[in-house]
């Protein structure tokens, strides 16, 4: 956790009034599940605690194949009625570090063929590998989040996979304008000819997805990752869970399990990983801050207003009384 952020950052991990409970829970491990109405459900699957199922994957490295997998079971006490948004959250991950933020080449990502083969110097030291230009170059791309999360509903010991939609998670303008695959004839593989994959990636950029409109630079997971977060503890949209019909909620209350292909090492920098399920209203995710702030400011204003009104009345009365002798 960041220096100063400890105290404040924890606030987002719990329900209001549940602070103590959470702190105590995180000491002994039971899946740190936060589940209260109107607040997102969070599952920390970092695996630092020995009791955690993911503890075995804690020291995973990039090139471990097959990937280390672990499963965390949790219970949903309240059902999610509307569309559910699935996030992954990282802590103590400085995506806003200056060296990191600038380590990208936007013209390469925009499909510029010259930049593809000759990436910007800003990408150093992730610019070339074995004399071949890296596509996409830079530290941001190189450190792309690559855990795979899958969600199952456990109903009487049968695991029903929940459909996770991977498209529609990036900004429309990013997906359609800012990020573009290189232009030219032939398939993506041919277009990326002459480049090499980022060092940490298991496979090249043109193999991120099977669907052509979600492959290469316009892969939405990639685009989401490339939008650097503002703070060292952040979440990024991972998948969407759509409500199928009006008859049943998107996610019913009950038992679920989260399958994780644990590829992304965070232990080395004391980071944490979380999976978050959240519903969203017209004004975005549940935000205690705005509510509290508005209520506080509103009541202060009301109080002051009353006080001033009284004062005003007092003087107003005097004013009229002063007119009497006239």
């Amino acid at each position, binding site marked *: 956790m*960041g220096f100063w952020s400890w105290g404040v950052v924890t606030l987002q991990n719990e329900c209001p009034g549940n602070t103590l409970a959470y702190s105590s829970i995180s000491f002994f491990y039971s899946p740190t599940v936060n589940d209260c109405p109107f607040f997102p459900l969070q599952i920390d699957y970092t695996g630092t605690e020995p009791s955690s199922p993911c503890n075995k994957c804690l020291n995973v490295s990039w090139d471990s194949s097959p990937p280390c997998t672990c499963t965390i079971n949790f219970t949903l006490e309240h059902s999610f009625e509307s569309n559910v948004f699935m996030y992954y959250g990282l802590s103590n991950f*400085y995506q806003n570090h200056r060296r990191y933020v600038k380590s990208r080449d936007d013209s390469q990502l925009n499909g510029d063929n010259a930049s593809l083969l000759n990436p910007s110097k800003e990408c150093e030291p992730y610019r070339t590998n074995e004399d071949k230009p890296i596509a996409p170059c830079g530290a941001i791309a190189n450190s792309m989040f690559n855990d795979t999360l899958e969600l199952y509903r456990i109903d009487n010991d049968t695991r029903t996979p929940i459909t996770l939609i991977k498209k529609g998670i990036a900004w429309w303008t990013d997906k359609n304008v800012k990020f573009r695959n290189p232009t030219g004839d032939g398939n993506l593989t041919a277009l990326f000819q002459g480049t090499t994959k980022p060092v940490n990636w298991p496979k090249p950029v043109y193999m991120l997805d099977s669907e052509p409109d979600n492959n290469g630079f316009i892969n939405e997971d990639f685009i989401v990752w490339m939008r650097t*977060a503002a*703070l060292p503890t952040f979440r990024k949209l991972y998948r969407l869970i759509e409500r199928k019909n009006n008859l049943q909620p998107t996610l019913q209350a009950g038992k679920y399990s989260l399958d994780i292909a644990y590829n992304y090492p965070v232990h080395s920098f004391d980071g944490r990983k979380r999976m978050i399920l959240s519903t969203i209203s017209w*004004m*975005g995710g549940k935000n205690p801050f705005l509510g509290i702030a508005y209520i506080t400011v509103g009541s202060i204003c009301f109080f002051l207003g009353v006080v001033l009104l009284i004062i005003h009345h007092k003087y107003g009365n005097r004013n009229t009384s002063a007119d009497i002798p006239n």
Partner: protein
Amino acid sequence: MVFKVPSNPNHSVSSFLFRRCAVAACAGEEKRVGTRTVVVGHRPVSETDAYVAQKFCDNRIVSSKYTLWNFLPKNLFEQFRRIANFYFLIIFLVQVIVDTPTSPVTSGLPLFFVITVTAIKQGYEDWLRHRADNEVNKSNVFIVENAKQVQKESEKIKVTVNGEVRLLSLKLVGRGRCVVRAGGGMSCPGELTHYAVRDTTVLCTDEAIDALTATIECEQPQPDLYKFVGRIIIYRSNQEPVARSLGPENLLLKGATLKNTKKIYGVAVYTGMETKMALNYQGKSQKRSAVEKSINAFLIVYLCILLSKATVCTTLKYVWQSNPFNDEPWYNEKTKKERETFKVLRMFTDFLSFMVLFNFIIPVSMYVTVEMQKFLGSFFISWDKEMYDEEIKEGALVNTSDLNEELGQVEYVFTDKTGTLTENSMEFIECCIDGHKYKDCISEVDGFSQTDGPLKYYGKAEKSREELFLRALCLCHTVQIKEADQVDGLIGHPEHRYTYISSSPDEIALVKGAEKYGFTFLGLENNFMKIRNQKNEMETYQLLHVLNFDPVRRRMSVIVRTTTGKLLLFCKGADSSIFPRVQQEEIQQTKVHVDRNAMDGYRTLCVAFKELTQKEYDKIDRQLNEAKMALQDREEKMAKVFEDTEADMHLIGATAVEDRLQEQSAETIEALHAAGMKVWVLTGDKMETAKSTCYACRLFQTSTELLELTAKTVGESERKEDRLHELLMEYHKKLIQDVPKNRGGLKRSWTLSQEYGLIIDGSTLSLILNPSQDSSSSNYKNIFLQICLKCTAVLCCRMAPLQKAQIVRMVKNTKGSPITLSIGDGANDVSMILEAHVGIGIKGKEGRQASRNSDYAVPKFKHLRKLLLAHGHLYYVRIAHLVQYFFYKNLCFILPQFLYQFFCGFSQQPLYDAAYLTMYNICFTSLPILAYSLLEQHINIDTLTADPQLYMKVSDNAMLQWKPFLYWTFLGAFEGLVFFFGVYFLFQNSSLEDNGKVFGNWTFGTIVFTVLVFTVTLKLALDTRFWTWMNHFVIWGSLAFYVFFSFFWGGVIWPFLKQQRMYFVFAHMLTSVSTWLAIILLIFISLFPEILLIVLKNIKEKSHQVRNKIMYLYKPIG
């Protein structure tokens, strides 16, 4: 370089005539020898004289600073000599060299903007100067060349100039006199009479001039406009060379205009940059305002904040990085170069990077805004219709715009009396002849009418004495007759065909006075003065010598020869300078009258005469001519001769002339008093005259207790130092020691207690300021100063010009260095005008000197009220607000960026996009404050003028003290914290959009920035009390521009940018409802203290009003 000046009476010199002739400079090793020699005509240069080729400069006037070629380097050099600009240049260079978080553009562009704006302003000013120079340099002049007039461009005259010209001849009737409007081309009421040398007055054709052979020796160029020492040697064939003296009355200054003469011939003696006018132009003083000192102090504070921020961040960075996974996690490896740099060097570059990141806390554009504010703001003074004077058809004049706000800070006002408090238009009131009073009283109906006017005689002097006295009045002056058909704007006398013109209004009054009593001065013709006496007979007197008036001697004399051959010397002057020079037994009877007249506030002059024998005259004549010829120490020699000549005279009588008070000067002084200013009157007049004027203009109230330190109280004896010591001690005790201590805390609270006034005269002052060595009086000055500072009003009479400046300097250098203001109209006030912090000139009757040397010139004394109480107050409030606002807005701009470092691993990641960093100060927030600082009237101008007490609210630099500075700083810090943490908490929720998508770091910065821009602009809107369409336009326009720019900036993939960080960030931000709510909330919270303050102030004011109303209502009852 003999030339002719044709002229219409009212138009400026349009052309000149020069004659090409040899000019030689006097030989000498030194380039500047004591004198210069100008040769007129074809005089063969003799070998023995060893003339060297002329060294005079050409006639190009260059008042401009730059040329087209050197403008860029020279201007840049001058601009970077400014500390602030240099600082930003350094920052810019650091950004270029070191790998810093923001691109060099972010600080380079504002710097470029600031430099460009300043350069444009200075270039424009220089262009104006170039144009003025060209106008002069390209103007046509006529040169007499081989007895013909040739028209040439003034600039091309190799030899000499349009500069100062010595009059050789005057065409018009050859009367040898001409009246010249003094001053550089401006219309100016100060007329001066200039003369040609007697021997050359006959030369009034081109041919005659061409034949002239002469040498002119004169002093090297020097800036004193009213001094000129030279001599002309005229060579005539077969005759001894004739030498004649040349004085300032023979010299025409550059830019002079002929008034009653069609054209003149002249020789140029000083040219181009060596003319007296040019030398004077350069000698402008550089005054700096107190506000600038405050700005510098604040700058230092902010520089310290900046340095400590950078140090804190650098230290914490290395503390944080001591943990290896923080220093270099696997996802964010260092570049090779970074790894190889030495740690110390890395720390240093980190420090510099933080400096660069936070450098915006020093408001880069403040200086340029302040400069523009001053430049544009000064127009309001000259546009002020209330300060426009119908009589002279001119308004106020601003010579420097640097001191606008100083007008709101004045603590001491030093004012001249004559021409400043008074009209300087004199009226003859009465006279006394041999102790008998003669008073004009037209209203007296006693049937006793005389041919010479309705006069009432309070006893009568002998007829012969009467006539002598009136003749003296008629002869002893330098008044000119001006024919009625040439009257322009002067007060004409329809019954007469002429008007009197003189440099001194007193003289006109006296001549008119004499006219009332039957003696009319008809003019001077060929050195013969004509008078019509009571019996309507013509009398003529040959004018032999005029011993001109000077402020040291305080008298003037003429020597005339009557038709009968009698030689008479008439002398008139101040009583103090006449009495010692006349028979002692005559004094007493006249002195009574003089003193009484002085008590009544009249200006008194004594008239004396003496008869000279031919022998005596010859001696005087010789001495005078000798002295006039002298090139060195001419003044001293002249003074000596005058001293000898004007002795042993007989006193005839005295005159009393009234100088009326200027309209509203009393009200103005009262207002200045009420505004907490201390008014000192510095005058050369007699104590009694000055005192009564001071009572008349309410400088002294009847309740004021007067303390006198004058020759009268101190005494004349040797014991005067002891006596002075006693007096000083007594007053000191009275004013300082006896006063209860608690009054010390209440500054300017004297209005409530006993008022004291001090009167001191010149001789006593010099005793105090320059005490004799042996006495223990070295601390007189201190005691005196303490006494002075305790007095409401101080009157210093019989002051020499330099003493005036001395007093101003003394007060200026006291503890706390109060802001001083000097106001005066005459040449004798120039020294104090230059000495004071703010110098104000009155465009009066005594010429342009005062207004030319002043910082501001106003037509009348009463305009001082509005100038100080309204304009000064407003300028001060505006600039103070401007300065504080600039520091404030930059603090809350940079503070979030500083806080962000704690959340980004101290990696110098900027919070805002480079475009925002660059544009914040120069586009988004610059115009509203500029408009505010130009137009704000927090209190209505009329209220400010009407209620002088308001002036005290801003006294002592009240708005730029540490307290308000801290208030603004805390406000800035508070808002910075609100911006950052508000958005920080907002971002705890990952998805602010209703489709679950997330925002990145640039959105974070943009939200903070949006709140910031709106808050600081709305804060200004809250502060604005005086809304004009311009304020609305710039405030709402700036905000609209910000929104528009953000859309535009984020709406395009910019090919020249390396990173498209802002692409659609702003638009996405606005799609989120939470963001809207947060922005509104944060703006509200930030402005909340301000709104609360306004509401509280309103309530307070209202209650105050109510209380006042109650008091007012109950007063008549209780």
